[in-house]
């Protein structure tokens, strides 16, 4: 449905997009994730034909957006980030205008407008002036506008920005419903948004695609594995214990996180879940276990790392593996990440970042350490006696 190949877009000397390629198949729902200024909006504007590309080819529903612009635009429902609406019109008038812009027939428009309003839950507000609506309501009107021509492709730029959590949930519900019928490309800089709705995520950063795949795939491939956390009473010879843990098959790195009272804390980075092996060693050595947990790094952590400015692809010299144009790849293409380029494998680097997790209360925290999203209390005060 959407095919982007070698898309580059420069504003003067600044490259907003640098050789981006991806495909979205029919019926797919893809989240476009990236920090502000990563090039999400630029990509979407190019897709909708608002901006021309500096180079590269973009086709939507089989039509080149530059050459067959009108054909392509006819098949796109676009919700810009700012949700532009004529304030002086009523909701239904706004929709009627959209119907005329898309050359819908009168009867067709009359049938579809209530249906689409019903869908976004605005049927009872159809006589309201757009200018009097709240932000969330307007967002819904914008969605209704995008949906009205029953486009093959929906492109939604930050559909939940500026909404309160409740409205966000509502919009999310609508999006989930849309995902069943349309090909959707939606952008956000808020990860849970994307994770909640999109089976496939494209992470862009500084004008490049940093990652592309399902969240699980991304986690697996970007983080390079899982973490096992061990808190136990290992006795005096910490080094020996560490060596022993490091000897488990699959474990790449063992980190000593220091003492917590009488217990000692370790973190093991491994390709697979090695809890049973660790348990076996503990049993063998008679360590008193206080905690043995397994944790996969969340997508958010990966995203956050990318947002920090690490460019996983910068180190790579070989071109991006891209499915040949026209063929439908059975799996979302995943950019093979060079895991060693990710900060995950460089524990020494300690970075602070403003948390993007809305449930984090905006705390700053150490990102080189895994974070349990479900236990925010713990994250608040990471203890690093060794550091």
């Amino acid at each position: 449905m959407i095919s982007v190949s070698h898309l580059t877009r420069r504003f003067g000397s600044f490259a907003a997009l640098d050789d981006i390629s991806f495909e979205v198949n029919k019926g797919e729902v893809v989240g476009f994730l990236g920090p502000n200024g990563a090039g999400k909006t630029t990509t979407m504007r190019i897709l909708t034909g608002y901006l021309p590309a500096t180079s590269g080819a973009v086709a939507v529903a089989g039509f080149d957006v530059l050459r067959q612009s009108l054909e392509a635009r006819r098949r796109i429902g676009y919700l810009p980030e700012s949700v532009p609406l004529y304030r002086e019109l009523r909701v239904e008038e706004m929709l009627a205008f959209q119907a005329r812009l898309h050359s819908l027939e009168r009867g067709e428009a009359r049938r579809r407008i209530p249906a689409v309003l019903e869908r976004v839950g605005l049927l009872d507000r159809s006589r309201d002036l757009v200018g009097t609506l709240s932000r969330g309501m307007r967002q819904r009107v914008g969605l209704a506008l995008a949906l009205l021509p029953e486009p093959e492709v929906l492109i939604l730029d930050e559909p939940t920005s500026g909404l309160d959590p409740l409205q966000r949930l509502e919009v999310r519900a609508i999006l989930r419903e849309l995902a069943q019928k349309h090909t959707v490309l939606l952008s956000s800089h808020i990860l849970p948004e994307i994770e909640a709705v999109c089976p496939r995520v494209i992470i862009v950063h500084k004008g490049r695609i940093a990652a592309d795949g399902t969240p699980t795939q991304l986690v697996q491939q970007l983080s390079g594995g899982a973490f096992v956390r061990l808190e136990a009473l290992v006795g005096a010879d910490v080094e020996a214990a560490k060596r022993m843990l490091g000897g488990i098959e699959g474990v790449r790195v063992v980190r000593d996180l220091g003492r917590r009272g009488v217990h000692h804390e370790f973190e093991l980075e491994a390709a697979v879940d090695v809890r049973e092996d660790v348990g076996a060693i503990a049993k063998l050595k008679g360590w008193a276990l206080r905690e043995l947990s397994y944790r996969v790094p969340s997508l958010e952590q990966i995203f956050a790392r990318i947002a920090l400015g690490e460019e996983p692809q910068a180190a790579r010299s070989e071109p991006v593996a891209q499915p040949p144009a026209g063929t439908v790849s059975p799996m979302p293409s995943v950019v093979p990440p060079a895991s060693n380029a990710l900060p995950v494998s460089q524990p020494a680097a300690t970075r602070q970042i403003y948390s993007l997790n809305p449930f984090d209360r905006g705390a700053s925290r150490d990102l080189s350490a895994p974070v349990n999203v479900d236990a925010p209390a713990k994250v608040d005060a990471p203890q690093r006696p060794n550091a």
Partner: protein
Amino acid sequence: MELKSAVQTTGRSTRAGLWLRVGLAGALFAVLALLLTRLAERPSLRVRSDWTQAQENTLSPASLEVLSRLPEQARIDVFLRPAEFPLEELVIVAQERLRQLLLSIRDSSGGKVLLFAHDLSGSGADAARTRLFELGLREVEAGGLLVVSQDTRREVLRLRGDLADFDPGDPAGRMGPPVPARMVSFRAEEALVGALLKVGASDAPNVLFLRGHGELDPDNIELMGLSQLKTALESDGYRVGTHQFATAAAIPEDCRVLAILGPEQPFQEGEWAQIKRFVESGGRLIVAPGLENVPEKLALPDLLEPWGVRLSRNGFVARAPLGPGGTPQYGTNTAAQLWLERAAMNAHPITDPLRRAERRVIFNGTRALEIGRAMPGGTVLPLLRSTEEAWLDLPQDGARTQDWKPEAGERQGPFVLAAAIVFPPQAAAGTPRRTGPQERPEARVAVLGSAVSAINATFDTNRDFLLNTFNWCASRDWRVKVSAREVPQRRLDLTQPESVQRVWIWIALAPVLVCLVLGIVIAWRRRR
């Protein structure tokens, strides 16, 4: 692939380059617009459509013909000035109409007429004065004037007198009841076209009025004179002179039209032969018998007889005027005054424009004509015809007085009152005369039943008929025309206070109120 490369080439250009390209496209389009504008001004591509009821902005076909025949660019310098009381406003109206006319002339001329309006009072006064001196003028009289010029030939037309006539009236009522000032006539189109013709034409056709047999005098400005006819002919581009056989035996070679209006004495043998030979060699002649006397021998009837027109030697065509209640009244000499309307006119180039414009012609003291056999290869056509009630009123028993009643011996109408004769030049008359290098030599004679039809007293009524006759005779068929009708004036009577009040309310207040109310209604309905 091709697509991609194209995309890349557009992409490579910088922003400045893009703006340059936009600017270039804009400049190209601007040039196109300029070209289009210029092209649209070409006369062949230009279409004018006059939407006014009276076709105020449409020049008569004859005027357009003159404009299209202008050999070179002519220039009209306009110097307008306000006039003094009581003509102040009338002059403003006349100036407005003059301006309208000048614009029509300029736009219809296909670039052959340049218009320069000079401002005598404002900032351009100095330049205007300079130009005025260049044109050899010192002062501009009240109302203003305009100068039509081409090379060194110039024609000055004054608003008052040449373009329009005003009657100052007596608004103060010093001599009896107050009479408002009025515009008597506005004939700027003819005057301007005449002036253009005069400055543009290198050879003006020569009209000679024969004198010496008691004919009417073209220099006489009294009621029975022909001075107005002379002026009109001159402003229509003719050179007008007189010819007397006493001073010059032969009719000059350059004589285009010979006019014999109202001869009372017989011609002499030699003169007779001269005139005959002049016509039969392809000359042009306009003849009309006088009121007093038609000589028995060597007079007009004898001249016309062989060409196919018989002219009655005595008696006048009369028609009883209708009195109150529609009963005909006999016995007054107004019976000799014939108003000839549409029905009286034949479809001939001379009368056809008048017919179509529903003009009238007045003939006074008219002899009766009879159409005879035309010359071989020629035609004789009646121009004007009286109605059936007319009779030829003969003087009683040799006396000169007439009773103006139809009697037993008197012929009943209809009578032919004017006729046009055409025949090819006769070999016996010598080398044929030509009116123009391309034109076929052809004798043309216009016979009018009465010379009185051309005198100053009735000239304004008969003007178009007479000029058409001369132009037809001179083979200037393109000048055969009818002058513009009076343009209706559309005025609001401001003297009545009620009407002024009504206008105030409906014009100044009502639209604003309607607008306000509509605005408020819409704002109210859209408040939520």
